[in-house]
């Protein structure tokens, strides 16, 4: 029996509460608030308390899927990315780059947000970048 505790940060909102993941034999078993965390001081909201739930959910998508004729079909990452890029190209060619927008998150890292805006500005050619905390 192996039991580990992994400190982490709740990914559900910009507050960034400290959590501990209790893992038993490689399976995420529960989320515990991190007592000594400077932000949350051992408190969590209901979302933070249930962080582990979706990870073990059988409903969770684990492979990329493409919607073809109204049905989702499993595919490879390469193909999924290629299809996405092709569709973006089509939209940009037809309606112009400002027909696209990128919605990022207050809870992503700075680096991820930077990459997302880079994709929007340098690749799509649009300034339409916004994030969930402004919705």
């Amino acid at each position, binding site marked *: 029996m192996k039991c580990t505790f992994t400190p982490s940060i709740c990914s559900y909102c910009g507050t960034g509460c400290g959590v501990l993941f*209790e893992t*038993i034999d490689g399976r995420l078993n529960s989320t515990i608030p991190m*007592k000594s965390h400077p932000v949350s001081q051992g408190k969590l909201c209901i979302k933070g308390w249930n962080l582990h739930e979706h990870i073990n959910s059988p409903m969770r998508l684990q492979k990329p899927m493409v919607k073809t004729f109204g049905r989702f079909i499993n595919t490879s990452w390469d193909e999924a990315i290629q299809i996405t890029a092709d569709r973006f190209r089509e939209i940009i060619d037809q309606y112009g780059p400002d027909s696209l927008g990128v919605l990022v998150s207050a809870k992503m890292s700075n680096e991820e947000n930077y990459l997302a805006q880079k994709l929007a500005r340098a690749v799509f050619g649009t300034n339409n970048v916004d994030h969930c905390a402004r919705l």
Partner: protein
Amino acid sequence: MKKKVKKWLEDGTVDLFLGYKIDCGHPLPHCFTREELDDVDHLVVGETRYSLEKIATHLAKKDPNLKIGLLARDCNQRAINVLTIWHQLDKEKIFPLNVNCCPSPIKPQADCSYMSGETAASYKLQVGIDNAMDIESADAFSDREKNIRWMYEFQKCIKCYGCRNICPVCFCAECTLEHKDLIGPGRLPPQVPIFHLVRASHMVGRCIDCGLCEDACPMDIPLRLLYRKVNTITMDIFDYNTGESCEQSPLSLLGDKVTLSLKPM
């Protein structure tokens, strides 16, 4: 202490030992094993307090034959007793290593002040209940004022279920607080005061006054005081101190024979 833990692990007294270790600068719970014996040198008692016995119940659920050692402050020890009563832990398979800690009605002398709490701000003092209040002064308000003050506290609740989730003695497979016909989950605003009173009624003869719930409450509701009050019932009328022994509370609604099985995961 470290020597003893090492010896326990080596001679097979326990299969694993739950304690604390500094990780990323924080004292976090850690599971020490025979395979990584040198790790025991990093065992600390630590200022923070987690419900190690609740973690032990999770482990016991996976493997009921597992022998688990754990650092036990007074509150952990009381919780182990209550969990034994409710068949969530097997006393024969639990090896507490006692460390000194905070004062409680059962143990007035102790040297940890972790639960001494913060001073309430002036608005809370005026309209609510000071978390540091004792039962007598909280009882001294008139009925009307008591009602208003407690309702002020309860209506702050965000229904995070933190008080139940963190509580070492809350383990029911089906919790009333999530039963769709009683207090369904997801319904907001929370049903006050019934949410808190239902929980309080369950804590009679069960709450071991560890204060973890109040500690985890984002809204600073004086939960520990509330449960202390309900526990004076068993203390005054039945002379039963919850957690002091492995004897069932005289106020058990389920009768003499506890038939609860381990909660399925």
